[in-house]
């Protein structure tokens, strides 16, 4: 009864609700469309801005202006024909190895002696730097600055012959290290480093920079030469000997120098000293 009475009201409400929701949907769509149009307008405005800014930039950076700046400030010129390289080999040829501190200090290194005993050990192997014991004398009386570098002969003697080509191998590895140590002048680590090095190095020859290399010393030094290269790469403790020695012998590496035919061996030799 009541429902019947309200039937028309319900109808009206239903139709009204439907119409309203439809209207809401269309309103929503219209809003979205407007939003889209707004974004599109923004895009267009941005594109116009880009175009005008490009024009402005192009005008400010015009060829004549660049030419003028170049004439007044930059003074750049076109690359000459010598600056054009055909291939990477031509490029590699331009590389010049500037002498390092070690190389330069090598110039004033003093003598070493090769003994008869040493010769058979290293026939025709100029690249192998003889390990010589080096002692550099500092002008001031600073006892701790005189170090000894030495290696155990026993270990050495086992190796030299079979390892004839081998010594060359570790050299590259050793070289940069050696250089670095040379340029680094910190004195502190030295004593520490020298100790472990000195321990095994009893039989190793002792070379004094003042060309006082006595024969027996040199003799013993020669066999040790090869191992120098080796130990460097092998036991961790031994390389530590090298920097120390090198530093000490900054001015005393002549023998090594002589022995070393290649710059590489040279660097390594420095390490050995």
């Amino acid at each position, binding site marked *: 009864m009541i429902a019947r009475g309200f039937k028309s009201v319900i109808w009206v409400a239903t139709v009204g609700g439907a119409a309203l929701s439809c209207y809401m949907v269309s309103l929503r769509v219209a809003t979205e*469309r407007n939003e889209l149009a707004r974004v599109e307008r923004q895009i267009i405005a941005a594109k116009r801005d880009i175009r005008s800014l490009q024009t402005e930039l*192009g005008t400010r950076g015009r060829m*004549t202006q660049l030419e003028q700046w170049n004439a007044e400030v930059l003074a750049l010129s076109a690359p000459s024909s010598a600056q054009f390289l*055909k291939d990477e080999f031509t490029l590699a040829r331009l590389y010049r190895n500037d002498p390092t501190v070690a190389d330069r200090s090598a110039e004033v290194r003093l003598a070493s002696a090769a003994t008869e005993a040493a010769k058979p050990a290293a026939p025709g192997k100029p690249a192998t730097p003889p390990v010589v014991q080096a002692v550099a004398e500092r002008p001031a009386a600073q006892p701790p600055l005189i170090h000894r570098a030495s290696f155990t002969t026993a270990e050495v003697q086992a190796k030299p012959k079979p390892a004839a080509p081998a010594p060359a191998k570790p050299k590259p590895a050793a070289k940069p290290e050696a250089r670095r140590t040379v340029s680094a002048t910190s004195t502190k680590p030295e004593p520490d480093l020298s100790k472990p090095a000195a321990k095994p190095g009893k039989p190793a020859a002792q070379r004094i920079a003042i060309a006082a290399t006595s024969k027996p010393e040199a003799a013993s030094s020669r066999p040790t030469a090869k191992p120098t290269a080796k130990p460097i790469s092998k036991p961790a403790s031994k390389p530590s000997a090298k920097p120390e020695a090198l530093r000490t012998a900054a001015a005393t590496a002549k023998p090594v120098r002589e022995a070393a035919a290649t710059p590489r061996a040279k660097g390594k030799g420095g390490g050995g000293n």
Partner: protein
Amino acid sequence: MASAAILPDRYGGAGQRPQGLSLTYQRLMLMMLVFAGVTMLIAGRLLFLQLFTDRGGAGQIGNPLIPPRADIVDRNGTPLARTIDAWSIAIHPDRLLGDPAELAVKLAQLMPERSAAEYQAMLTSGKTFVYLSRRAVPELVAAMNALGEPAIEFSREPQRMYPQTAMAGHILGWTDFDGNGVAGMERVLQDRLSDPALRGTPVALSIDARVQGVMEAELSAAMTKFSAIGAAGIVLDIKTGEVIAMTSLPQLNPNKPGRNAEAAGFNRATLGVYELGSTFKPFTVAMAMDAGVVKGFGQMYNCPSGLKAGGFTITDTHPFNRACSVAEIMKESSNIGTAQIAAQLGSARQQEFLRKMGFLEPVSIELNERGRTLTPGANWGDVATMTVGYGHGIAVTPLHLANGYATLFNGGIWRPSTLIKYDSRHPVPQGRRVFSEETSYRMRALLRLVVTDGTGGKADAKGYRVGGKTGTAEKIVGGRYTGAAVVTTFAGVFPMDEPRYVVVAMLDDPKSTAETFGFHTAGWNVAPVVSKVIGRIGSLLGVQPDERRDVNMTEVLQYVKKEG
């Protein structure tokens, strides 16, 4: 008949009442249908608008991005001409509120192009509309706005702008205030640039802005140094005939077409015709070789100190006074030797070759600013043949010369020069054969010799294997040749072992300086320009300098007698 009889009876009879009711119903029904129809129509229209109008609106929004006139760009896309929205400032003198005298002073301060009195006359004229400035910069607009005069009107209107200012001004030309091209490529491409369907895509010219900049900078430096009255320079792609750079000095700024100097409007590269002198000699030798008159560079000619031709005597700056080979004639730029070669070739064959090279008609390029070449015409006898052989008695444009060298060194094919970049839709034309490939190949060594051993030594750019020929021609002043004023030209080709570009530089009336030891010949003033230009543009154009490569010179060097 029957119904006609019945009708009056029906309306006038007893059935009148129910009939009137149904008529009312009918009318009501009709009215309802009409209302429904109108409602439906409106609803349909609304629906239609809802569905289709928005898209139309979106399409209209997209339009502003298409410029009213297409851009012009160089071959790498650097804009050379653009249309931007510029400010224009106008005033309505009849609606003026402030004091005209006071305003006129302020206007004169802001825009000093006119005096305060002129502004006042303008303001008191009572006109409805006067433009104050049509291409105003934003700073000026802001300053004018600060004056606060309501009669001043600001509006934005499309304006043609040339970002590179005076660079390539003669090529681009300019437009009038209505945006119609009136000179240069703007005029040539008027239809293409304003075509609504094609406005969106820029037109690519064959110009390379970098090369153009280098050419203009080096030429204007030389022009200042040697106090020349003008200069022209061209870089041409040998294989296609595309103009990579073309300039004429003094420069012309298309942004201010009305305010350029009178002399600047003259395009020396395509409109000016000059007797280009010795740069013609390679053509004569090539013609003679192609015709079989000259068999090889060792062919000997008698080169005395003077050669009688008609009423006058041909002389050389470096007389041989002995027999000389073709290679030596070219190396020392001997007029006497070349005249003899031309005489052997003969007038008819010379004219035929020149006609095939396009030297007897205005240069083939899109521009309207083209000059008519001057030739001996009907008087093309033996004497004229001899003088034309070494570049006198015939006046052509520098572009003719560049195109001639391109023809000579690209294998002998003539192609029209063009300022439009060639691409897939616009391919390189076939061209026509002028010289044989053999002649084209053999001439390389001869022109390289001029640079390595001869008069063009200063044109050499290290590693770029430059070949070319100098040319110094006396200008005709008052109907007579005079040694005082000359036109110096250098036509160069690089790299000579595989020719790719022609570079032509010309100085109009250069003076000698202390640096040139009193000489004003091409080898001293214009050849260094070519060297500098090639040194700077060579690598930009993809030519890698290489000092270990060169032309095979054995064919010419054996015929050159070593002096001293």
